[in-house]
């Protein structure tokens, strides 16, 4: 090793290999990614962010939110199961097959398997197998499909993040398609934000809840979400005690109220945190954009590469809960 050029060429060659695989390779494999149809829907995912949310992404980036908040749900597997959704009319035949299922054959002596199976059929869907491979789940469904009873393959997404309720599925490359730059983050000093746009109010670290009127009204819900985010940005400690998130007072403007005038409809409703009389706190356009961005964050569309489990389709009489919940709306 006394020749400089030799070392130089060796180094260059190794570098070229790593570059070709990880940079050029990723570009080949992911560079041409396009929005794809959401499963069981004609909608394309992801859609570009609306203008205000796009501006909010800039605020998020500029203020380094991504140093403490990740935007990535991790998933490390999937398990399958099978359920019986509709026994049809020939219940006796179904029970004949059903009693051969492990949960009935394993019953202790003295139990009447048929009675138990009959009880089980009263409460649909009947779980045939759970937490198994796709092949075994299909195998469990076979005797029922043979007698033309409706069954469904079910699956569960696995992973600590999903168990912790951070999202229904792991994040995939497609989720970041319109992020420029993508900010998946590397530290969770605060909660993960990949699904903050669809997170239920009681699942926030700073717990809150929709008003009664908003529970059934999506427009009101959006307004309340925005109000929550703005109040949280103005003073995080108010909602989450001991929060280490800094306040962002510079995203808000304190304005003098004209004597006798009513507070602006944009003003934050701060309760006991409200500034002294005659002052009101108005979010700047930056704060509004940031809130819009946060509300646009959701990695929950069901995709070919990572699907979201949906409740099984039950027979007609109990349809009220069935079809709509299957695919989350964008």
């Amino acid at each position, binding site marked *: 090793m006394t020749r400089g050029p030799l070392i130089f060429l060796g180094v260059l060659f190794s570098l070229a290999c790593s570059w070709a695989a990880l940079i050029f390779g990723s570009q080949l494999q992911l560079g041409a990614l396009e929005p794809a149809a959401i499963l069981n829907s004609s909608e394309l995912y992801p859609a570009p962010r609306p203008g205000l949310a796009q501006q909010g992404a800039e605020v998020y980036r500029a203020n380094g939110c991504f140093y403490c908040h990740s935007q990535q749900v991790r998933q490390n597997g999937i398990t399958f199961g099978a359920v019986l959704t509709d026994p049809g009319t020939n219940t006796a035949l179904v029970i004949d097959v059903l009693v051969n299922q492990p949960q009935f054959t394993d019953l202790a002596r003295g139990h009447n398997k048929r009675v138990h199976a009959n009880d089980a059929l009263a409460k649909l869907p009947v779980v045939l197998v759970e937490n198994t491979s796709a092949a075994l789940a299909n195998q469990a469904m076979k005797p029922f499909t043979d007698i033309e009873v409706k069954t469904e393959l079910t699956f569960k997404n696995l992973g600590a993040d999903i168990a*912790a309720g951070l999202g229904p599925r792991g994040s995939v490359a497609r989720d970041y398609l319109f992020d420029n730059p993508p900010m998946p983050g590397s*530290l969770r000093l605060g909660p993960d934000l990949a699904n903050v746009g669809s997170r239920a109010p009681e699942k926030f670290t700073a717990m809150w809840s929709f008003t009664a009127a908003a529970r059934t009204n999506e427009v009101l819900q959006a307004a309340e979400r925005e109000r929550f985010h703005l109040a949280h940005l103005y003073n995080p400690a108010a909602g989450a005690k001991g929060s280490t998130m800094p*306040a962002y007072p510079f995203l808000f403007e304190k304005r003098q109220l004209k004597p006798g005038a009513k507070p602006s409809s944009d003003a934050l409703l701060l309760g006991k945190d409200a500034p002294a009389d005659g002052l009101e706190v108005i979010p700047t356009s930056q704060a509004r954009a940031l809130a819009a961005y946060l509300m646009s964050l959701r990695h929950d569309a069901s995709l070919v590469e990572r699907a979201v489990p949906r409740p099984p389709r039950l027979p007609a009489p109990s349809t009220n809960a069935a079809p709509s919940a299957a695919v989350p709306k964008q």
Partner: protein
Amino acid sequence: MTAPADNTSAAPALTNAELDASCRCPVACLLFSAALWLVVATVLGLIAAWQLQSPGFLAGCEWLTHGRVKPAASNALLYGFLLQASFGVALWLLCRLGRAALSGPLTLLIASKLWNLGVALGVCGILLGDNSGHPWFEMPRYAAPLLLVAYLLIGVHALLTLHARRERGLFASQWYLLLALVWFPWIYSTALWLLHVHPVRGITQSVVGWWFTGNLQFLVLVPFALACAHYLVPKLTERPLHSRDLSVFGFWTLVLLGGWCGIPAGAPVPAWFITVSIAATALTLVPALAALGNLFMTWKGRFGLVRNNPVLAFTLIGLVFFLGWSVRAALTGFRGPAEGLRFSNLGAAQEQLLIIGVVSSLLFAAIYELAPRLASHAWPCVGLPRVHFWGTLAGTVLIQLSLVVPAMQAAKGSAVGGVLALPVSMATMAGVALVAVANLAFVAHCFWLLGCHLRLRKCKEGLVALLNAPADAEVAS
């Protein structure tokens, strides 16, 4: 040819004093700017650390909000101090080891100004909200190209100096320098092109960012640190490097494996990226152990020399921390442990250990060795290096413990969170403060040495004028 030796070959050999004189100006310029950036980074780092446990601190000030101070501090440290000091040390090492005068000192001086201009623009830009959004590559688009131009000037002259060497053989130190000097412009220009000039789509940007970060750590910062160690250990223990074959093996395995590291387990990319990266990271333990084994075998039996010698003391902790960092990187990279650790403070701890514990320590060691030679004056104080050493050691250990222990505990349970309990975050803060005191002691000492040098030069000039003799080449430059 297994150890840096001072015997010169043939012809009009340059003396050490002449070599030092040839690189005094540019190297001193790089090192003093680096020292100033170290102060900036230390102050910003203290603010950021304090904000973590008292979130209201300076929250009202837009450009000092935590999310801006933190990247500003890390960029000042990385680009202002670490890389700049590495370049300075590298130039000096190339002169010394090759027995050649520095090529293009004036250009290098300009390049160093340009680099500092770039870093200053970048850090101010980050504080003003122009963070690029890519960790380790936060420099805004108007600052990042300046750094590349400045680096190209530095890199070309470093290679020219290497080419002009009189010792035809190459020392292990020089291999590592060559590796870092060639690797940096490629990864930096790739990141610049694909993130700023012609941004790729979606998560591919993050892949580029992760690749850049991994390569910067494993094949730029680590080689600079190892180059210092491979010079200092044989030199100060006055022994040849234990095994040349082992160092060749360690070097080439690092070259082969280092470039594949960086994609974190669980990233939303196709699995093969992650698998390749995990395997490469685990395997980099091989070159790390080869290099460390070789250095410690060289050192064996003479560890007593560490006492009262800041150069060897910093070399020793740098190498021990390097061992810890490599082992931890290899073990925690796997998918199993990463599930609980990926978003914990472990990542921050790893970065801190690499930057402060490993690379800074070895650079400090090299600077303690070379600065008195450049200044032709011994370090003026014995106490300050001690403060520097113990502050760095205690601070680093404290930060590591306070970040890693809770991360390990949390990993057993939940998937969320790196929030520290108050006593723990106070311990982190105390560690950061200790490192800050150490760094300030070091910078103060550097400026004290500069003062001594200037006084000495004045005396010499006075003497020269008095004797009315032609100016001594070394003094005049």
